[in-house]
């Protein structure tokens, strides 16, 4: 596992905050309301730890809802490749993703049914957020990546994170995302699945970015 220094971690958080700022602006344009998005923190985990993190967060937020464990997660994933490869997945608890779609669409939609149309809306929201995050990353690192169309999936955290197929030696870079619209605050995650080489690449790029920023290059 690669460790990032505090400065490197801060740099990454700052870069992603710029990225989600763009996404928030795009969504604000769609819904006509102010949308706030921020990335309060980033953690690096193994795939198993990441699945556990999502489960725990779920259980905590599901207090008092009377629902059983194994509440489902909605994931929108896109594949990026070029200078490096990664699977990026935006994740919200299923009912939260519905809430976001409802807020964006402005209709009162029955909660229990997730229809195909709403799935596509969620796919677009994921597409906007992921493209903004990765776009900023790519710009700052001056690398080019090709991004695929979004794929929508609902399942347990294990299923969502495993969907890309088991690959040995992968690390999950997990962004915690805060999404605020009309006084609703929704907490979600963006997971980047990287192999160790890509992770080293990332660390290298952050260091180069910092060096450039500090006038050393």
């Amino acid at each position, binding site marked *: 596992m690669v460790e990032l220094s505090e400065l490197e971690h801060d740099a990454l958080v700052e870069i992603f905050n710029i990225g989600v700022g763009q996404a928030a602006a*795009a969504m604000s*344009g*769609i819904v006509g309301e102010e949308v706030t998005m921020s990335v309060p923190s980033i953690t690096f985990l193994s795939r198993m730890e990441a699945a556990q993190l999502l489960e725990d967060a779920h259980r905590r937020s599901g207090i008092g809802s009377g629902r059983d464990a194994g509440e489902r997660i909605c994931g929108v994933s*896109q594949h990026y490749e*070029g200078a490096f490869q990664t699977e990026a997945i935006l994740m919200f608890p299923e009912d939260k993703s519905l809430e976001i*779609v409802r807020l*964006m*669409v402005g209709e009162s939609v*029955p909660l229990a*049914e997730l*229809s*195909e*149309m*709403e799935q*596509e*809306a969620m*796919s*677009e*929201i994921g*597409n*906007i957020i992921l*493209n903004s995050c*990765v*776009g900023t990353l*790519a*710009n700052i690192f001056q690398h*080019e*990546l*090709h*991004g*695929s*169309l*979004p794929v929508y999936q609902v399942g347990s955290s294990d299923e969502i994170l495993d969907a890309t197929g088991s690959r040995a030696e992968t690390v999950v870079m997990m962004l915690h995302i805060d999404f605020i619209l*009309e*006084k609703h605050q929704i907490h979600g995650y963006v997971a980047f699945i990287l192999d160790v080489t890509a992770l080293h690449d990332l660390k290298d790029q952050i260091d180069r970015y910092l060096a450039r920023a500090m006038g050393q290059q």
Partner: protein
Amino acid sequence: MTDTSRLQLLESVLEAVSVGAVVLDADGRIVLWNRWMSRHSGCASHKAVGTDLFELMPELRGGRVQAAVTQALQNNFSSLLSPTLNRSPFPLFANAACEGRGERMQQAVAVTPLSLGDSGRHCLIQLSDVSMAAGREKLLREQTELLRMQTFSDGLTGIANRRAFDVAIDREVRRAKRAGSMVSLLMIDIDYFKPYNDHYGHQQGDQCLIQVASALQAQLQRSVDMLARYGGEEFAVILPDNDPHQALHMAGTLHGRIVKLALPHEYAGGPDKQITVSIGVATLVPERHGDVAALIGAADHALYAAKRQGRNRIVAAPPELL
């Protein structure tokens, strides 16, 4: 297969498919505009090719489509425009009749980058007609609503049931909080209902409930006011945007309606030998930051007070309870 015949094959496929295919070059100029596009946009291929897409369709400027094209040409990223969030970004019509009515086709749009070697980066826009799927979904939703109404209504009286009430009170309190407005709740209980049932029989007891519910419902004219059967002989009325005075006034009106029914009740424990109701009134005001439980608790509290004070009366909950 020769290059020419292969080219012919691909062109015929492109012209035959039931999706719109538009390709833009790096400068945003249209280099491909298939037959589906011509048919549904009313713009022929020879007019479209060579033109800047955003000059051909200026309404697309500054919107999601332009952002997606930029993402593809500059960043090599793909974008999806879902029909739910972008109903009909392109001016496309299913047929001439729809065009006459100004009824646009509902579209799903996908924008993907294309690397064409020496020609550089291009952008492919695919468009599909999802109007039928959208129509089906609408129908399904309406049918579900209908079913939902059936499971939310009380079998005996036809008014909303407890489940409907629980959903509604939650929704109205949240709405009131969002809007910074008030919401009032009335808890109405038929006086001496048990002795009525015991002496007149359950069938007549049921009839009494039906008549009381009907009388109450007739008095509630606004569609946002909700009457629900809360329990055996208990009713609840949700009055959004009603302050304590308005709620009290409504309680008085409802109380009066029941008295006017003049349903005889020889076995009532009080002085009035007819069916009467006791009513508890409570109002949630935004400054007090109460919640659903507090509102119901306060209305209940007021109802019990009305019973204790002799029934056949209205009591308003003290504001401190909320």
